[in-house]
């Protein structure tokens, strides 16, 4: 038997056990969030930076449910529509916990939540200069993805389809082109609708998948989290195994020799 090389998933020098990264938004409550994260097997979660509700001291906080010492928090700039806001958010995140590994997301349009790639590239350059390790949400344009890598991005995160749309992988060709050219991890982010979408992304050769709405908005989020865990493992194994060649016509599975 051929000994397989250990399949390690590494982002900016950090080893991760799971190739599934999950978002922590949109859940009913923090208990459900924690249960879903646990069921998903993810060891990295995205989090947002927001004002503390200072007048409601009893309000529960995320860190009480998900220990940042046990699970990697990936601060995200979701909701930022320009470079200035995104940089401010990530600098605050770094001050909060010393996080250098962050996810940059600069949105350009409220209706599609499509990334503003000009501001995204500018922000990446500044953050890299400041010592951040930046995972970058981007369009599925191979040229822009390459540009981000050249600017020092730690991971390229092209969208499968618009954030929260659940439309799945809409442009497999572009995602494949990005995978083939990239030396840093490629993680499909946004638009994944169901577990099989994650498998497809992993079979294409993505290094990982980031999912939030598809789990949180499922009728049974914890069960869906488990489905995604299996889907990502399955897709990765399928990619490593290497699929058979497609044929236009049938090829019998049983030998034609010795037919009676």
């Amino acid at each position, binding site marked *: 038997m051929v000994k397989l090389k250990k399949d390690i998933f590494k982002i900016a020098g950090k080893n991760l056990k799971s190739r599934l990264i999950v*978002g*922590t*938004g*949109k*859940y009913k409550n*923090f208990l459900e*969030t924690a249960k879903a994260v646990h069921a998903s097997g993810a060891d990295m979660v*995205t*989090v*947002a*930076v*927001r*004002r*503390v509700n*200072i*007048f409601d*001291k009893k309000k529960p*906080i*995320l*860190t009480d449910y998900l220990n*940042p010492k046990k699970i990697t*928090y990936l*601060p*995200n700039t*979701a909701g930022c529509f320009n470079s200035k806001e995104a940089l*401010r958010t990530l*600098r*605050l*995140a770094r*001050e*909060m*916990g010393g996080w250098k590994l962050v996810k940059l997301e600069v949105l350009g349009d409220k209706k599609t939540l499509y990334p503003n790639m000009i501001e995204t590239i500018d922000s990446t350059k500044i953050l890299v200069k400041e010592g951040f390790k930046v995972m970058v949400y981007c369009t599925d344009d191979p040229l822009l993805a390459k540009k981000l890598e050249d600017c020092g991005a730690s991971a390229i995160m092209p969208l499968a389809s618009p*954030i*929260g749309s659940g439309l799945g992988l809409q442009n497999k060709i572009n995602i494949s082109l990005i995978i083939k050219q990239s030396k840093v991890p490629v993680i499909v982010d*946004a638009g994944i609708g169901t577990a099989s979408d994650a498998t497809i992304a992993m079979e294409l050769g993505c290094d990982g998948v980031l999912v*939030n*709405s598809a789990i949180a908005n499922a009728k049974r989020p914890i069960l869906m989290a488990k489905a995604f865990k299996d889907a990502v493992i399955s897709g990765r194994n399928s990619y490593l195994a290497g699929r058979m060649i497609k044929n236009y016509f049938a090829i019998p599975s049983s030998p034609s020799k010795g037919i009676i």
Partner: protein
Amino acid sequence: MAKIQLNGKKVVIKTNYSIFDLLKKYKLSKKKVAVEHNGIIISKLELKKKYLKNNDKVEIVHFIGGG
């Protein structure tokens, strides 16, 4: 007495009040939040040294669930 803007809301505080005192007042652990004072991020080590004055703007943020 001084009037400041804390997370977008008007708050009245005593004089000689530091950002550290402000965090204590709202029972916030400095380990779990980050503070911006008039647009400048204040490191955890400086919180005791930064005193608030009239019309100061303070933002206190933390991590919440997000995608």
